[in-house]
């Protein structure tokens, strides 16, 4: 993959065209060369390990910072979700009725009260209409009676006129009779006087009767005005109000349904947010895992260091890095798709720069919020 096999073979094989035996012993110089190669590569591996350690620590720091930030945001979200649930709950109460003098009255109860009141009004209107018509009937009847009394008065006047005429005739006859008719003259005078009195009484009665008739007519007219006030529109108002109240009850029901759904959803959101906060808080376990990985890598690094030193001690010549290892690293780095990461690896592995202190590279959430697209 990295071309070591070929390069190692090229370095190990003598230029002789004759094939060497498969299990031929390796010369001491070749062993030294391989050891130097191993030490050089171990150095490279150490740099890779240290860079990885640094990268893991930085990533862990970034993840922790982000997790803290997310946790804070979710906690704020949880508070908001709780408040939202409370608001929805209060909206639910509002949808179900109104508050009067501190007492909550449900819409259907309002409708019931309104229906009760309107039924009472309708009942009174009916009673009023019935009584008014009863009065109209009674006054019509009374008017008929008065008319009949008026006819009787007419008859009385006729009788009186005849009586008066009789008295006059009796007086004439008494005058003709001379002294013999003196007593008859007195009776005729009394009858005439009686007729005059009856006439005066009749006139008085006619006047009184006229006043009664006038009163009845006025009463009838007034009653007619009352009775002809059409209350049918007022009665139909009950019908319309009932329709309105039914629509209001239906709307209240729909609103309650929607609000209840919203409450359920708000509770689900609150529960989800709480779950997310708990999930984010498990980041601590991830950090511990990464610390174990870093610790293991450091142990490997130390082991390599020790083995490298021990091996270098037995070699005559110092170890120098070869371009083959650099090529291997470059081939490794070609696999990286993140430019920023690749730059850090180049700087630290190939250029020998020291890894950054993870504590200094703890980025704020806003700084790490950018994502490299590739």
């Amino acid at each position, binding site marked *: 993959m990295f071309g070591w096999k070929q390069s190692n073979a090229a370095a190990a094989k003598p230029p002789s065209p004759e094939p060497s035996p498969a299990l031929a012993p390796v010369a001491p110089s070749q062993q030294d060369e391989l050891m130097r190669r191993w030490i050089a590569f171990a150095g490279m591996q150490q740099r890779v390990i240290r860079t990885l350690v640094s990268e893991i620590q930085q990533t862990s720091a970034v993840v922790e910072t982000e997790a803290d930030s997310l946790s804070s945001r979710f906690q704020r979200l949880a508070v908001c979700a709780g408040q939202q649930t409370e608001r929805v709950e209060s909206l639910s109460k509002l949808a179900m009725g109104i508050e009067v003098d501190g007492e909550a009255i449900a819409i259907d109860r309002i409708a019931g009260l309104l229906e009760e009141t309107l039924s009472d009004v309708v009942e009174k209107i009916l009673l009023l209409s019935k009584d008014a018509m009863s009065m109209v009937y009674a006054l019509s009847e009374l008017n008929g009676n008065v008319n009949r009394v008026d006819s009787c008065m007419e008859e009385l006047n006729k009788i009186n006129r005849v009586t008066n005429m009789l008295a006059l005739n009796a007086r004439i006859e008494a005058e003709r009779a001379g002294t013999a008719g003196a007593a008859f003259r007195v009776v005729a005078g009394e009858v005439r006087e009686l007729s005059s009195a009856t006439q005066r009484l009749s006139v008085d009665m006619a006047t009184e009767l006229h006043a009664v008739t006038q009163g009845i007519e006025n009463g009838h007219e007034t009653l007619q005005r009352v*009775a002809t006030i*059409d209350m049918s529109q007022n009665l139909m108002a009950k019908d319309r109000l009932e329709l309105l109240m039914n629509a209001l009850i239906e709307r209240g029901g729909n609103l309650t349904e929607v609000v209840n759904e919203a409450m359920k959803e708000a509770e689900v959101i609150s529960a989800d947010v709480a779950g997310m906060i708990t999930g984010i808080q498990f980041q601590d376990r991830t950090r511990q895992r990464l610390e174990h990985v870093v610790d293991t890598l450091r142990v490997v690094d130390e082991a390599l260091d020790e083995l490298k030193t021990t091996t270098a001690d037995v070699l005559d010549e110092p170890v120098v890095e070869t371009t083959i290892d650099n090529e291997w690293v470059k081939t490794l780095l070609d696999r990286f798709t993140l430019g920023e990461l690749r730059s850090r690896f180049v700087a630290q592995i190939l250029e020998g720069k020291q890894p950054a202190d993870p504590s200094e590279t703890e980025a704020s959430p806003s700084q790490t919020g950018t994502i490299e697209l590739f």
Partner: protein
Amino acid sequence: MQIHMDNAGGPIAMSGEFTFSDHVPFKQMVTEIFAAPGRSVVIDLSKLDFIDSAGLGMLLLARDEAKKNHRELILRRPSGQVKRMFAVTKFNTLFTVEE
């Protein structure tokens, strides 16, 4: 309002608009029908287009008159505005209302 009376004792039919101005003929009709023998009196209202509160009052007086004479007043097939008025005033609890 027009009143159609069947001399053979059939139902009485009212048509047009029943308002205060009809109190004289209506009273006369009520007097006549309760003067005649029988048990129940049926008034067909299917052709009655409108009734006002005075008309309702007169029907209630007719009901009282029926009770006084141990008779039953049946109102038949009210429609349109008359039917709505009957519903609002719950006339079906006061009269026998036939559909």
